[in-house]
């Protein structure tokens, strides 16, 4: 006869067996003294224990702990709110003073640079008037097809602008800290002759066109911006050319024509007089020379080597425009023997004299 196992007997003792199993087990125990004795022993083993109770008042300790926790939460999380409530006015006052301080600091802050004005001479082809105006950075020059103009940037750069030019002065600043001038122009359209008189140590300037970024380093060059690209002819000095699309950069040489289009920079050797647009702009300025105020022009040139910045800024003002007095002009030029560009001006004078003689003869 197979005896009941201990777990079954335990379940039977605890009345946790299924009814059928319980009946079978009870029947077996009636006929089996071993299992019967075992059941008795198990019953005694699992008999309810004497329940014990804690002697000290644990609940009171718990409630005390609970009160402390509650107080701690309240104090931590509402401390900031209570602080704000208590010192509302003081905090508002402090904040107001702080804001006023920041505003004063912002107002009293002066940038460390000064704007450099430009002088623009515009000459119409049809009438004899030459208008002069002082312009600042941000100014956009759009010339009529019939007009020509000379733009002087503080005796550092001279632009000869042919009709139809679209030029914007993006930046024209003198930095007091590093004592350096910075010019930035955007030439969107037209033909120009650009000559710079200052070295790269005292001046940095660049000309942006739709296709290129031009970084001249004390030089003279012709530039023609048209929808098919930017053409540059270098007469003298060095020019860094950068393709605005591909970022390709080259150092341009004199006596070459460079064409910068969207994808490439091309160059070929050419004589200056073989280029029609270069000749055109030179011609238009021969015509303009008749009417330009060369007295002022030369006085501007006399300041070319004066790179002291601020002082020369104030001097470059022109009130009236008069017809040139060539003898007086020649004297002034003779006195300027130290001028590097004296030969060039002599040539200009010579040309003008011949033209005047020719006119007088007529």
């Amino acid at each position, binding site marked *: 006869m197979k005896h009941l196992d201990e777990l079954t007997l335990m379940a039977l003792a605890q009345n946790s067996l299924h009814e059928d199993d319980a009946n079978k087990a009870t029947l077996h125990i009636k006929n089996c003294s071993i299992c019967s004795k075992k059941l008795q022993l198990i019953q005694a*083993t699992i008999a309810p224990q004497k329940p014990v109770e804690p*002697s000290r008042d644990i609940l009171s300790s718990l409630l005390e702990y609970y009160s402390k926790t509650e107080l701690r939460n309240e104090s931590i999380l509402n401390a900031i709110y209570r602080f704000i409530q208590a010192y509302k006015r003081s905090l508002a006052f402090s904040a107001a003073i702080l804001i006023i301080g920041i505003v004063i600091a912002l107002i009293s802050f002066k940038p460390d640079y000064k704007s450099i004005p430009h002088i623009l001479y515009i000459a119409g082809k049809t009438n004899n008037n030459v208008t002069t105006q002082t312009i600042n950075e941000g100014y956009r020059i759009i010339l009529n097809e019939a007009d020509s103009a000379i733009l002087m940037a503080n005796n550092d750069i001279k632009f000869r602008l042919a009709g139809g030019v679209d030029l914007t002065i993006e930046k024209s600043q003198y930095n007091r800290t590093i004592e350096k001038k910075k010019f930035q122009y955007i030439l969107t359209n037209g033909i120009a002759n650009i000559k710079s008189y200052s070295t790269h140590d005292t001046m940095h300037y660049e000309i942006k066109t739709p296709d290129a970024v031009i970084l001249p380093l004390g030089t003279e060059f012709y530039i023609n911006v048209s929808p098919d690209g930017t053409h540059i002819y270098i007469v003298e000095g060095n020019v860094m050319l950068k393709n605005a699309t591909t970022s390709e950069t080259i150092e341009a040489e004199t006596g070459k024509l460079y064409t910068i289009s969207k994808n490439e920079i091309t160059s070929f050797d050419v004589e200056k007089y073989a280029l029609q647009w270069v000749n055109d702009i030179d011609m238009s300025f021969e015509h303009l020379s008749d009417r330009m105020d060369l007295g002022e022009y030369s006085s501007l040139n006399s300041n070319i080597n004066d790179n002291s910045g601020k002082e020369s800024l104030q001097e470059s003002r022109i009130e009236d425009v008069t017809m040139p007095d060539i003898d007086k002009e020649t004297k002034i030029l003779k006195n300027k023997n130290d001028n590097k560009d004296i030969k060039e001006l002599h040539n200009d004078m010579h040309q003008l004299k011949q033209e005047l003689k020719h006119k007088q003869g007529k």
Partner: protein
Amino acid sequence: MQYNTIQLIEFGQNFKKNMISREEIIRLYSTHYKEIFNYIYHLTGSYETAEDILQETFINLIEYSKKTIINLDTVKSLLYRTAHNLSINYLKKNEKFDKLDDTINYLPANNTVDDDILIQEIQKEVSNALQKLDAISRSIFILKRDNNYTNEEIAKLLHISERTVRRKLQSALSHILSHLKNKGFKENL
């Protein structure tokens, strides 16, 4: 992560909402303290330890209620599990203990459950036999004996499989019965 003042206040309000109430603590303690205290007492074999662990169990409940919402339907199982883990930790720290014989003296004198001297003798021997078992087997036997939990309930409570519960219970029972036989109780019954 930083909170602004309003968020902190809202958090504080929610925090207080979540936290178990004082009344709830009193109710839960009054309902469950006896069985949990007995469970810890039989498991650890030390009366004073049982008191400490009982208090720590309810403190854990208060702290836990700060972090999450307590489900009152399953709080009993949570209390048992906490008490069990704390007891096991205590037993691991104090591996040597056969204090039950001493702590028996702490039992209340006005006990009226069973005056049968033989049954008392058997239970004393059962307690001695229990102390020689591993903590899990002891825990299973106590839960089965005092609470009449099913194997499934014990398995859930102790995070073990039902098969393990059955196996451990079988071995615990065999161990106790053989201990009693050695003490000569078989013949006397």
